[in-house]
């Protein structure tokens, strides 16, 4: 029996429509592919399905209770309803319950990539009813003085995405759940500071948090800055892995970085440098004008024309006095292709030598 023959046989019924699926796919994955919008708060497609929030429950013919679509594999001939009135009622009740355990629902999108997921669902289901009042879960950690990650657990809904992303994606196993039940508290070993734990400040927990309970402290500095948040896709400037990132800007200000969840090299992962060490770009120390050295050894700011003329003149003089083998170029492993290409062309086209190298030997 060929694999393709098997695949052709695999169909199920989703809200009255026949859909095909691959062996091993969950109901949720099939629904995602067919553009069904099943709500969820604990799901991150990079992680193993966990089945905590139960928002993704669906009705399956022949099964008494609804099943969590994220943890239930599709089977041939299965008949599934994703949005019956009863199911939608369950979802609304669940969301009302979750709203009741939190300090607030609306948070700044600067908190993190997924920080608006909860708000969006609450609004979609009209779940701000004020029902189910009672004690709140999770306690914000006000003693952790780290400059990167806000631990605002008053907003935590115990979806465990942070715990799982730290273990499954980052492999650091720094985050854990202390106690149990309604007393569950997301924390680190011995309930201490992140700095004293296995945390490497990669920020993945921040970016997967659906309520903003874990938040990007550096980006939040720009919360009050006027202007819309814009995102620009680029590549991280640090090591050679080449992680895709979205730069967050407001007007001319670079205010933060978020990992690209679909980045081919990183799939949403970053490290402390890529995530948090972006603000060298708009640092006051940046060179803003060309500088030329004075006879006394100090530097003087000057205009481009003069600086470029002086730069060229030095090379021309060397060429004249010492010949074409007197000039050397060192390119940067940090600058883009256009810089490196221009550098080598400058040497090869300008002087006919191969006196060009880069920092890879250092």
């Amino acid at each position: 029996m060929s694999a393709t023959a098997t695949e052709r046989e695999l169909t199920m019924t989703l809200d009255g429509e026949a859909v095909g699926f691959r062996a091993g796919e969950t109901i949720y994955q099939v629904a995602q592919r067919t553009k069904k919008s099943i709500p969820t708060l604990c799901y991150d497609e990079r992680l193993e399905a966990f089945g905590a929030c139960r928002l993704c429950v669906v009705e399956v013919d022949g099964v008494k209770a609804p099943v969590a679509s994220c943890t239930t594999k599709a089977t041939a001939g299965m008949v599934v309803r994703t949005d019956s009135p009863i199911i939608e009622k369950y979802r609304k009740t669940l969301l009302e319950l979750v709203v009741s355990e939190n300090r607030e629902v609306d948070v700044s999108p600067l908190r993190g990539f997924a920080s608006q997921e909860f708000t969006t669902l609450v609004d979609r289901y009209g779940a701000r009813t004020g029902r189910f009042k009672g004690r709140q879960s999770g306690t914000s950690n006000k003693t952790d003085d780290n400059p990167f990650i806000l631990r605002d657990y008053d907003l935590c809904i115990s979806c465990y995405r942070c715990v799982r992303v730290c273990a499954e994606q980052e492999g650091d196993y720094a985050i854990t759940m202390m106690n149990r039940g309604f007393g569950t508290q997301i924390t680190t070993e011995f309930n201490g500071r992140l700095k004293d734990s296995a945390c490497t400040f990669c920020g993945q927990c921040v970016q997967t948090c659906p309520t903003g309970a874990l938040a990007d402290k550096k980006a939040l500095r720009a919360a009050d800055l006027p202007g819309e948040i814009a995102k620009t896709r680029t590549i991280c400037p640090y090591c050679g892995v080449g992680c895709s990132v979205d730069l967050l800007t407001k007007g001319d200000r670079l205010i933060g970085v978020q990992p690209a969840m679909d980045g081919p090299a990183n799939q949403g992962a970053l490290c402390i440098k890529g995530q948090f060490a972006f603000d060298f770009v708009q640092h006051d120390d940046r060179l803003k004008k060309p500088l030329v050295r004075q006879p006394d050894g100090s530097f003087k700011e000057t205009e481009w024309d003069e600086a470029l003329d002086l730069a060229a003149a030095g090379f021309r003089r060397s060429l004249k006095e010492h010949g074409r083998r007197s000039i050397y170029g060192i390119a940067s492993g940090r600058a883009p292709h256009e810089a490196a290409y221009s550098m080598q062309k400058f040497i090869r086209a300008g002087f006919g030598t191969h006196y060009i190298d880069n920092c890879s030997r250092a």
Partner: protein
Amino acid sequence: MSAHAAPSTADLVARWRDEPAPLLPLLHALHDRDGFLSEDALRAVSQALRIPLADLFGTVTFYHHFSREPGGLNKPRICTGNVCCLHGGNELLAALKSQGATAMPCAGRCDEPVPVLRGHEQLVGTSATSLAAKPTPLPAPNPGGCEECIFESIREPGRATLEGYRRTGGYEALSKAVREMTPTQLLALVTESKLAGRGGAGFPTGVKWQAVADAPGQPKSIVCNADEGEPGCFKDRAIMDYDPHALLEGMALAGFATGAPRGFIYLRYEYPETFRILERAIAEAEKAGLLGVNILGGVFNFTIHLRRGAGAYICGEEGSLLNSLEGKHPFPRNKPPFPVTHGFENLPTAVNNVETLASVPPIVRKGAAWYRGLGRNAHAGTKLISLSGDIQHPGNYEVPIGLPLKTLLHDWAGGPQTGRTIQAVTMAGLSGGFLAGDALDCTLDEPSIRGKGSFLGAGGIIVFDDSRDMVAAAHAAMEFFAHESCGKCFPCRIGTQRLTERLNGEAGPSDLAAWTQEVRDIGTVMRATSACGLGMAAPFVTDSLLKFFPEQVDNYVVSKEPNNR
């Protein structure tokens, strides 16, 4: 032993590191040595077993009885479960406060309240001065004169020793199986007997064993669920304390039938004396060649490892139990896959209750038809019922399945205390909620009790007489579920908390209609969407409260008056 210096951490690590399921015993060894789990101890365990420190820390904090404070092990922990509440548990807790006493959920001594854990001992008593270590109450001779399966020989003196056990037919079944039967024949016999899971789920044992036997992958395991955590249940304790070899023999038979070479007993923390009894029994059986390699001189090998929980009701749920055994965070597992194919260490595993396993040796000795015939009205076999609360003769009873509830309550157990009437009983410990009024006219079998809107489950029945406030009883029950909710799934984690708050006046509408709507909505979503049985069952408490005691609810919500009569 006490003359020697305490073992070093390195010694303890070396003792356990290469054993199967090493985390719990290693943690207990350190906890017992130091009286608490220190940061240093956890760091050593993390390194030795290669468990990330954060994971280990989180897992340790999950269990009620692992203390992280120096001296914690030796501070008294007082049972304030539903039954002990009726017998002065809270007052005893107050009396021992000065010794650093804390409350603990039902510790399975409802037939002789109030249990207190201190150090490595369980004491019993209702006042600070009367606390004493006492053996588990022995089941009374069957008051109905019914033929028994499990308790048949339990009252024989010395039955807990290998010699005593063998004197009364012990290990004959294993001997017969190993020498005269094939695994297939044994599987067929168990299937024919219609024995079903006695931990509450009622899944046919033969079918489960067959699935394990058929599943690919080795080594397979037999895991005995001895985490008898359901409040009002204490039957497994009686079996293990007075008839431990019956359990061991049942496990060995399960191993023979399924091809599993190893077994684990996951015993609840609150039974320290039972732990010692089982340890002795396993050692005796190993020495006699009844466990280990080449059992009874044949080719069958079966080793039993005894493991101890640390205080978590959810570990009675088989997925949680397996995670706990493996040293993982004890959240339930998503099903499928089921343990029969993906159990302990992802290999085929039969998880069976103590009572189920202990039923097997008599079935093998006397035959499937004999066992089936023990029940009434076409029901097969017997069920142990743990009866407690407001009743003349609390204790464990082995009843023919199908026995009328009222026969048990009034004829066997002497009825309520003089001058009182029975207001309500719980079913399935607390998980089945309350039955009252006409619903008490049922028989002790699943179809009958499910017909009344509840279920028999593990067979714990707590009696409340007409002096009791049923809202308070419901609150105590829901508080237990909230305390024991693992926190993985949203409906249970938040729902048990909100229901508890609504049953003690801490939060919730003061308008009766709004109050009722909230309680019903929470119950509905918990039952429909919870990830495991805990969250699905907890709303039985509130639903049955609203069904049978609307006037008490009305009085509580509207007048804020206790229902004390």
